[in-house]
């Protein structure tokens, strides 16, 4: 008797966005003797092509490898946000990296490998694919944090690596326990087993879900797994911080939504724990940011605080929360990237600037000051910027799912956030007499950085005035539910 040989289910189309980025990464790896500028342009072109191929896949619900890889609309949405963030990072790096003597093509290669991993996470229909993507992203991230040859950068890389690998190990153990409880590694299979109450052992399933939550918690900087965040974001070169605090977070949230919105929507035992973690994240992130005197570190804590706001969307029903999450992630990426791109320009070294040195920036560099002010106002959640609608949508989604207490807490902490965002913003418009920064010569804004800042500022204003442009595309509850059932 010969075993039946079935050809593997290989479809090129849903893999195309990932393959294009991977090809770009390989070119950047081989081209280490080429000028960095050329490699960066190749990288941008690869990212844009990949984004374009995602647009052509829109609505097709294509899958490959028996549902292990699926390019449904949520995956494409997260993928496009990743592409936007990565392109802005590259644009900002074109002018910034030569200034800090980090102008080598390895940066672009690592960035493209990281994006490859992120797209794998977003497209994952299977815990193993998700894990591979997460590791590719994390490993590239560790290298990027260490790339700059300063003691601080090395320290930040080491801390990132050690805590990140502990997070991965916990996540893998969680995957093993989930497999033990449900007998399946695919998200659809787990969902089926959980819905049918057809699993071996409830404690095993809950332990697996909680360990996966903890593992992802390390990646998105949920308190109490956030300790590495301020040090890594402060010590890494500013352009790398831009990448780590925006794009990496988008991908990790995509994974979280895939697992907890897609695979465990019925078994809500994890929800109580997640609620406590989100509440802690909101409180710790916002109060710690309040006492920071270094602007780069302030933005690092702001990234922790925003993890809390984004976490609200996870607590909501996936059908509502998913759309709010994609919108908030896009807004968060644009406003954080804009703020860090300005910081990269005005900082005297890679340690960032003290808040006090921002005094009078408007009189030295009006354009930069206005761009930074717009980003900070958006981060604080003021209308008419995108941050306002992002917050509004996630608050609404969490509130409608019955999480009233935590929504009130989030609203209160966002008032605290107003203080620490608007203080530096107000300082920029005060006259700068007697401050050391006043004598520093104005920096020239290069073309590429100008484009990056333009994209960010126009993006947050446009999303703030016309949020429906993006939100309505994702606001179809059916697609978020189908996301995990389509592969049956």
């Amino acid at each position, binding site marked *: 008797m010969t075993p039946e040989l079935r050809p593997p289910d290989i479809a090129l189309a849903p893999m195309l966005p990932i393959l294009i980025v991977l090809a770009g990464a390989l070119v950047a790896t081989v081209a280490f003797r080429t000028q960095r500028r050329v490699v960066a342009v190749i990288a941008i072109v690869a990212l844009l092509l990949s984004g374009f191929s995602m647009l052509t896949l829109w609505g097709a619900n294509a899958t490959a490898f028996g549902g292990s890889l699926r390019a449904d609309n949520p995956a494409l949405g997260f993928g496009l946000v990743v592409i936007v963030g990565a392109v802005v990072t590259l644009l900002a790096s074109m002018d910034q990296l030569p200034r800090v003597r980090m102008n080598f093509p390895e940066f672009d290669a690592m960035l493209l490998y990281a994006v490859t991993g992120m797209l794998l996470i977003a497209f994952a229909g299977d815990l193993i694919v998700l894990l591979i993507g997460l590791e590719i992203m994390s*490993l590239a991230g560790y290298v990027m944090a260490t790339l700059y040859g300063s003691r601080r950068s090395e320290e930040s890389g080491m801390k990132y690596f050690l805590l990140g690998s502990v997070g991965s190990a916990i996540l893998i153990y969680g*995957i093993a326990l989930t497999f*033990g409880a449900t*007998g399946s590694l695919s998200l659809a299979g787990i969902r089926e087993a959980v819905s049918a109450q057809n699993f071996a052992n409830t404690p095993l399933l809950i332990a697996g879900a909680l360990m996966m939550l903890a593992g992802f918690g390390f990646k998105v900087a949920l308190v109490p797994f956030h300790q590495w965040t301020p040090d890594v974001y402060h010590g890494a070169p500013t352009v790398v911080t831009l990448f780590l605090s925006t794009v990496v977070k988008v991908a990790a949230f995509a994974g979280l939504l895939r697992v907890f919105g897609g695979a465990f929507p019925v078994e809500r035992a994890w929800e109580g724990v997640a609620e406590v973690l989100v509440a802690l994240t909101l409180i710790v992130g916002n109060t710690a940011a309040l006492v920071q005197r270094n602007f780069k570190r302030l933005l690092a804590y702001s990234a922790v605080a925003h993890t809390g706001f984004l976490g609200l969307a996870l607590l909501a029903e996936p059908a509502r929360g998913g759309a709010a999450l994609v919108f908030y992630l896009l807004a968060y990426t644009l406003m954080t990237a804009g703020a860090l791109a300005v910081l990269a320009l005005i900082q005297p070294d890679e340690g960032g600037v003290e808040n006090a040195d921002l005094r009078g920036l408007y009189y030295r560099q009006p354009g930069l000051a206005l761009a930074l002010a717009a980003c900070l106002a958006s981060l604080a959640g003021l209308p008419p910027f995108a941050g306002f609608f992002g917050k509004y949508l996630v608050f609404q989604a969490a509130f409608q799912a019955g999480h009233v207490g935590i929504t009130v807490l989030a609203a209160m902490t966002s008032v605290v956030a107003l203080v620490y965002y608007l203080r530096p913003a107000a300082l920029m418009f005060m006259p700068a007499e007697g401050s050391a920064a006043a004598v520093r010569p104005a920096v020239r804004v290069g073309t590429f950085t100008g484009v990056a800042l333009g994209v960010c500022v126009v993006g947050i204003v446009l999303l703030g005035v016309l949020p429906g442009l993006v939100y309505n595309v994702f606001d179809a509850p059916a697609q978020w539910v189908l996301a995990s059932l389509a592969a049956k």
Partner: protein
Amino acid sequence: MVGTEWYIALSGVLFAIGMIGVMTRRTAVLIFLSVELMLNAANLALVAFARAWGDLTAQTAVFIVMTLAAAEVAIGLAIIVTIFRKRASTNVDDLAELKG
């Protein structure tokens, strides 16, 4: 024949030892070794569960986890060596320039 629960118990113990090591050890190399122990605990659990369910997917997952661990070693040791060259120490308590 040994039941699955014994394998899972052993894997849980290995994972706990790794976790304790991560929290108590102070040099980067030993912390990293403890992480490897946690990964192997997960591998043991995956293999045991794969046999219990009669499903080979988890066995292949073990190969992937082993590959990931190897890649992590490559990157991790590179970072540790870089740090050691500048500071002649891999004690994580010496990494205290970034605080607050």
